[in-house]
């Protein structure tokens, strides 16, 4: 895809810029859809209709919201630390967006096919955490401060089980590269990690061969539990209900972005939604075959239209990502908020021991099989 772009545009620099900006275009579009999904699904689950007056069935409501945010007054509280206050939204969004560099959107498009993949995604996520801290502290407001502290404590704690859960997949595949992890799940729905991983030998993108057979069914319960653990940790990492203690509207107003308005608020909002999509997409890459279709091949490959395959793969990944975002919204309107001690109990006494245990078992099984 990079070479195609270069041949069209002629220059390398422009290609690089476009290549870097493509996920941004996607994230912006996705955020609009996710915002609409949030309001509509929440309404339907509460037997309401949701926004109905902006466009047919209210489908252009998020655009109206964006227009509103653009027009809003940009308030900087006089007692805040101006410089850090203005810097924080950018740092936060940078942290969320940087992670998309390593996400393979299709077999042909990946920002940077890093060998480090998962490790990189986790590492840059922590930049956003510093941004939250910055926002909370510079607002000079106790609600923001507590929100930021809770948020950071929660994210740092839940990074451990989330990383451990993905580490289990890494132990099995022997690679951190996300593209490789997806390739390992090719060939059909039964080869996805959530169903126990590949059932026949596969050659990874890096050229290494992964031995596998139907005996891999023993991994099914293990990987299924791993997926549940990852998803729960991902919910906590993105501060979504039932782990939305940092943003608890009813007690902390809305956490670290209480003092923000207008476009700076929109940046935080975007970062949050980008994070949601990121964890959803990582879940679908690690456990649900990423851009692999459930029937193992693409329509483009079947009918012999080569350019159709990457598009299809992208659509599959987007669909899976959206599905997990939908489940997040679904859970939000199902479960009440946890207490802080319950949150920490869940992390340190349930998820972490289980993830270590499963990692041990999977490591052992990989060794003997």
């Amino acid at each position, binding site marked *: 895809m990079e070479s195609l772009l270069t041949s069209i545009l002629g220059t390398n*620099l422009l290609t690089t810029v476009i290549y870097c900006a493509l996920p941004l275009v996607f994230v912006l579009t996705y955020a609009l859809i996710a915002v609409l999904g949030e309001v509509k699904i929440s309404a339907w689950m509460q037997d309401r209709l949701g926004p109905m007056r902006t466009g047919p069935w209210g489908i252009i409501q998020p655009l109206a919201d964006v227009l509103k945010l653009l027009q809003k007054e940009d308030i900087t509280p006089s*007692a805040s*630390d101006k410089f*850090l206050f203005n810097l924080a939204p950018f*740092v936060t969004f940078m942290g969320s967006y940087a992670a998309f560099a390593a996400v393979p959107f299709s077999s042909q498009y990946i920002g940077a096919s*890093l*060998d*480090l993949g998962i*490790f*990189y995604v*986790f*590492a*840059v*996520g*922590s*930049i956003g*955490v*510093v941004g939250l*801290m*910055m926002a909370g*502290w510079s607002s*000079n*407001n*106790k609600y923001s*401060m507590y929100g930021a*502290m809770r948020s*950071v*404590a929660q994210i*740092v704690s839940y*990074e451990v089980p989330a990383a451990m859960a993905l580490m289990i997949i890494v132990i099995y595949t022997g690679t*951190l590269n996300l593209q490789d992890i997806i390739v390992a799940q090719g060939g059909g729905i039964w080869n996805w990690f959530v169903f126990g991983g590949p059932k026949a030998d596969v050659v990874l993108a890096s050229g290494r061969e992964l031995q596998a057979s139907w005996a891999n069914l023993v991994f099914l319960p293990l990987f299924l539990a791993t997926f549940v653990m990852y998803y729960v940790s991902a919910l906590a990492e993105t501060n979504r209900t039932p782990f939305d203690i940092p943003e608890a509207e009813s007690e902390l107003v809305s956490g670290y972005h209480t003092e923000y308005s207008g476009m700076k608020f929109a940046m935080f909002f975007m970062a949050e939604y980008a994070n949601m999509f990121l964890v959803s997409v990582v879940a679908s890459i690690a456990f649900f075959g990423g851009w692999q279709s459930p029937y193992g091949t693409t329509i483009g490959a079947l009918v012999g239209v080569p350019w159709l395959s990457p598009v299809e793969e992208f659509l599959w990944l987007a669909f899976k990502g959206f599905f997990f975002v939908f489940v997040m919204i679904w859970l939000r309107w199902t479960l009440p908020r946890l207490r802080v001690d319950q949150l920490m109990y869940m992390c340190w006494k349930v998820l972490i021991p289980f993830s270590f245990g499963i990692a041990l078992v999977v490591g052992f099984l990989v060794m003997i099989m």
Partner: protein
Amino acid sequence: MSYTDAFFYFFAALTVGSALVVTFSRSVIYAAFALLFTFLGVAGLYVLLQADFLAVAQIMVYVGGILILLLFGVMLTTRVTNAEITTGTVQGLPATVVVGILLGTLILLVSRATWNVQESLPDVTGTTTEIGERLLTTFLLPFEIAGILLLVAIMGAAMIARSTDKTKEAA
């Protein structure tokens, strides 16, 4: 000047500039936040040196771990809503002497050392596999010892942080 050079100067300026802020800022919070950019700049330099694993590890450990811990420490030990957390200058003379000696030693070392200078970087694509293999073969013992050391440190920290209230422990 190629793009690589431009990126090098950008990251170098970022690192040095923010490091200066860390040193000279009177506000601890500003120093801590400036540290973020120092770490990012250093990570960028690592990437330019084709040490991608090291760069990501740098961000993971320093930004994700140490910086957050530092910020927590600063914010939890002082009044959280007070923006004026500052550092003062004390012990001017001894500090100058010690720093002078250290600086002299460093300059001496840097100027005396025989640097392994190469015209261009070896073409390395991804260091992760090799680092992984070396860690579990050649450098297995140091790796394990470091692991055990960290485990001991964690347990020690948990032990110290633990409530010393006997009645609570009994329950």
